[in-house]
């Protein structure tokens, strides 16, 4: 029996995009994955094992380690050919770990979000101090750290606090809308794409709770670093 993730992938109907990856299906039922920007290129390095996604996702184009896999710095120049849905699922989970499961939970109405203040208040040890960050500091930090343009491609679903305060008033409203492709929103900041342009469907990368990197940044703000 296919589980919720497989059902999501089956219904995604290639070609579709997942973060910076474009996924196509061949007539033989295989899947071809490339970097979205690489579409027109021909001389891509070919990989055929889903496990290769671990290493492709590990370093950016300059060879730096990528601590945040949803940052918009996936390296270029590769083409990953996969035999079936099982391999596709495995590879996508190495590229964007956990994001398919969170998307499936969201689609099924099972995803719980946690406000940033909830995450901060839970911290212990060296991160406990991070909770002292002010609302104004959060507003600026999130706008800078989480922005799709150079920060992170996830769609923010969490609120600032239990009162429902927005994560940052300085981010465009598209940043909070799972129906919008974060990369296209960057390309056309003012208007949504015209309905006539054929656009590959997108599985959004969802952020249901602030990541550890953001908590570490909150701590730095409090400590004045």
């Amino acid at each position, binding site marked *: 029996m296919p589980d919720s993730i497989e059902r999501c992938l089956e219904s995604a109907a290639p070609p579709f995009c997942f973060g910076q990856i474009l996924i196509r299906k061949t007539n033989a039922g295989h899947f071809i994955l490339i970097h979205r920007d690489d579409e027109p290129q021909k001389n891509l*390095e070919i990989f055929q094992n889903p496990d290769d996604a*671990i290493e492709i996702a590990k370093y950016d184009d300059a060879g730096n380690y990528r601590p945040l896999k949803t940052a918009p710095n996936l390296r270029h120049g*590769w083409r990953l050919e996969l035999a079936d849905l099982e391999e596709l699922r495995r590879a996508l989970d190495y590229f964007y*770990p*956990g994001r398919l*499961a*969170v998307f*499936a939970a969201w689609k099924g109405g*099972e995803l719980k979000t946690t406000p940033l203040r909830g995450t901060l208040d839970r911290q212990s040890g060296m991160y406990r101090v991070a909770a002292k960050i002010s609302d104004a500091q959060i507003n600026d930090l999130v706008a800078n750290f989480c922005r799709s343009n150079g920060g992170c491609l996830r769609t923010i679903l969490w609120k600032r606090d239990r009162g429902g305060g927005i994560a940052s008033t300085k981010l465009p409203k598209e940043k909070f809308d799972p129906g919008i492709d974060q990369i296209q929103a960057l390309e056309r900041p003012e208007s949504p794409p015209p309905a006539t342009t054929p656009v590959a469907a997108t599985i959004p990368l969802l952020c*249901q709770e602030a990541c550890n990197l953001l908590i570490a940044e909150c701590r730095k703000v409090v400590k004045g670093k």
Partner: protein
Amino acid sequence: MSFNKESALLIVAHGSTVNPDSSAPTLAHAAKIRRRKIFAEVGCAFWKEEPSLRDAIFLFDPKSICEVCVVPNFISEGYFTQTVVPRELDLNGRITKRPNGQIWKYCEPVGSDPRMTDLLLQRAREIAPGVPEAETSLLIVAHGTDLNENSAVAAKREAEKIRALGKYAEVLNVYMEEPPLVSDWRKLTMSRNVVVVPFFISDGLHSYEDIPRLLGITVAAGVDRGRPGSPPPATALGEIFRRNPYKIGDRLLFYAPSIGTDPGFADIIIEQALAAKS
């Protein structure tokens, strides 16, 4: 081993925002266990990498997975296994029943398993094949002064167990940051042959650069980071481990990769999970 079609295995580990090799052994163990098809699903989650421990709550579809066994890939009980992991995963004790019906079982950390001793012995033999144990000193390296961690205690326990077997001329614990210091190994040991095994979960700066420097290994520590298409990093050993033995003065030094990169860890993870199930 029978197939648990409604059970999932979740391996939790520390991970790192700076060390690309930190999660590699955990991912490699998970891939190995997945191939053995003992659990319906095998996932990983990390404190400092993705998927996060918080993401892990949503990794397994409650319609197909009834039970999740959580195995901490840590060298010892401590702050992470006792405070961080249960808090982030919303666990309340050894067994947690979720509102969606899933049962989550929290297992012992891998490093606490009694089979760890055999693994250390095996690794020590592999790194110095044909070298008589009775003429060899075995050093087990731990960090020491870790925040609230008991890794030094665990390393001490392992050294005592191996010493009691009477195979090696001597078995010593050494630490990076507290005495007895790794850097004093020449004073601390008497045998001509010295085998050094880092008691860490993964390779990284400590095992690639810091410990070699403290040991006096001068060879350039070329780090084999693994590129796309190369073998999984847990088996693609760094250059530093391929130059054994190192001749330092009148001694022969054999330097092993961190114990956590041993494929035998996968078996221990399975055992920990199955022990929690029964």
